Each structure stands twice: as C-alpha cells, then as structure tokens.
C-alpha cells in the first residue's frame, strides 16, 4: 500500500516537472518566434477544463472558445496570437479551447495549428452534456461561438462576441490596470 502511494507520488512529481519544462519551452518559443510542429493536442473533458477557467494566481487569462470551422473565430485568432506575443512578459496567458468535431482533430485541428504556427496554447475540449457545462462556464452564454473569458483572481468578464485587436487589447487593459502603478 505504502509502496503504491509512493509510486503515485513519484509519478505525479515526474509529471509536474515535465509540465513545467514544457511551459518554459513554449515561453521561449513565443519570445524567439520559433515553432515546433505538433502531432497531438491535449484533450480535456469538463472536469479537466474547469480548473483552467478559475486559477487564482497573479496572471490574467484569456480563454477563447473557437473551432477551425468557425469563420469569425478563425478571423479573430491573429488578435489572440498578437496578445500572446506582445503580453508574453506581462503575466498574460492565452488559452485557445477548440470545440472542433472529434473526427476532425487529426484531419483539421492539428494541421491548422501547424499551418498557422499558433503560439498560444491550444487544447481540445470534448465533452457531451453541453447543457451542463455551458451554463456552468457562464450563465449568460447561449452556446454560440466565438466566446471569450478574460479573468484574473479579482475580476472576470465573459464576451459572446467577436473581437478586433483594439477592442480585445482595451478589454485586457482593464484587467491589468490595478497591478500596474
């Protein structure tokens, strides 16, 4: 029993150090502008996604719900990418949550990420019972995409709309102000 616990602990420890390195690596890539092609994308269910929508550290997070087939989503992606680059050292993190179809992850989503050389972190969100998680993510969300959440530990806002760069940056700035001075 004790052995088992120790083993699990070891596994967790290994995983968590790996994760840190990956993040460090991707940050370096953001700053240097290099891109490594991906062959898989992290898939999460709602239980795994939820903690990413309510972190309580010092960062400001931009969570964008999108899909490769959603034209207005694809149109605004460059603005989120620009935020990732320009705010890389300003405690801002962008997370692109893909709502593509399960059958199109390999055929469409992964090639799309590689072709566009997306720097922001992309995860694939696959869970049925949309009725449950849409309401849980945001009471006012009808379910239409694109949809975006900007949040940090003291403020949170939801946007069921498309963004242009200026509007997005202006919104983001309202989250960053209190920390400036």
């Amino acid at each position, binding site marked *: 029993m004790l052995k088992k616990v120790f083993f699990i602990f070891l596994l967790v420890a290994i995983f968590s150090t790996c994760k840190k390195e990956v993040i460090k690596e991707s940050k370096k890539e953001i700053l240097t502008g290099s891109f490594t092609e991906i062959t898989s994308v992290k898939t999460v269910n709602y239980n795994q996604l939820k903690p990413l929508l309510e972190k309580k550290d010092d960062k400001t997070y931009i969570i964008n719900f999108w899909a490769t087939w959603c034209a207005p989503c694809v149109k605004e992606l460059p603005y989120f990418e620009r935020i990732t680059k320009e705010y890389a050292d300003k405690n801002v993190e962008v997370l692109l949550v893909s709502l593509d179809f399960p059958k199109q992850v390999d055929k469409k989503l992964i090639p799309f990420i590689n072709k566009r050389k997306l720097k922001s972190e992309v995860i694939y969100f*696959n869970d049925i019972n949309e009725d449950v998680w*849409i309401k849980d993510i945001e009471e006012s969300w009808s379910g239409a995409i694109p949809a975006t959440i900007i949040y940090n530990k003291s403020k949170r806002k939801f946007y069921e709309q498309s963004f242009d760069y200026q509007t997005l940056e202006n919104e983001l700035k309202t989250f960053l102000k209190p920390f400036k001075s």
Partner: protein
Amino acid sequence: MKKIKIILVMAIVSIATLSFTTSTKKGYKVGDKIEDFSLKNIDDKMVSLSDFNDAKGFIIVFTCNTCPYSVANEDRINVLDAKYKAQGFPVIAINPNDPAAVPEDSFGDMKVRASEKEFTFPYLFDDGQKVYPKFGATKTPHVYIVSKKTMEVEYIGAIDNSSRNPDKVTEKYVENAVDALLAGNKIEKTETRAIGCSIKVAR
C-alpha cells in the same frame, strides 16, 4: 420652451438607447406568446404557422446550410419531422443567416441543401433577418417548440445532449419535450443549451 425641447430630445435619446441595449439579448422566453410569420419556403411558396390546420404545435429550428453544428444535426432534424409530423408537431426550419454575410446561405443554396439532404419539412428563408431576432435566436441550430392552441413557447434550446457526436446522445431534449406535450404532461427541461454557430448578419 427651448429647455423643454432639449429635455424632450434627451429623454427620447435615452429611451431609444435603453430600448436598444436591452433589446440585444431579448426575444421570446418560455411561456411567451409568439407572433406568426410569413416566410418564403424553398418551393417558393409563403408559409405561416396558421397554414397548419391539423398541427398541435411546431418544432421550429433555426438552422443553415453552412454551420457544421447544423449540418451535424440535419439527420436528427429529419428524424424529428418523421416521428412527430404525423403526431401533430411538424418541424419548421428557418435559415436566419444573411447571404450578404454568408453567400453559401443564399435562398438558392438552401434549395440545393434541402434536396441533397431530402428535407421532409419546410425550410424557410428569413429574408431581411426580421424573424429570428423576435425569437431571440443567437445560433444555429436553435430550437423553439411552440403550442399551436396558445401560440406559447414551450421549450427553447438544443436537440439533444451531444451535438458533436450523435453516437453519444443519452438525453433527447426535444423528443422528451414533445412527448410530454402530447401526453399532457409538464416538460421536465424547458431550456437547454448547446454549442452552435453565431447567426451571421452583414453589418
């Protein structure tokens, strides 16, 4: 006199902006009485809800040719019509998208799509995009179940609980709602949500 005029203008402006801002998220809620409409069907004939003499109600589905979530649900919409038209709840599909924003959602393309998928129900074009805002539809697909007798909205939302993967459906919201209405029972879930494509209008 001038002052009164200014106050009057200010009042009008503020009322106008207020009604504008509140109207952006408005539309029919469950229990609201709906207004009938007259929209052109893919057979070039105008269709109103009052035309359906034998109907007990309607499964109104805002859908379109282009949204992958709509396309993924087309077979399920056909099944709904096949199952419930005979029982008095026909499907009425409405395309709310503006072809000026999405050329593939034109009236001509609707005819093509309907024949490809052998739609058994009316597929109406919301010319000028005037009907969908009354409903408050925000996305495709977006379902409204209406009772004919009262013309009241009974249900708003999704077809089932797994829009992306039909093999994983475990709860059929629309079927459950219509079954309840047919049996004279209360609908258990009157509002549900699903991911969908935003309705597109040229600005």
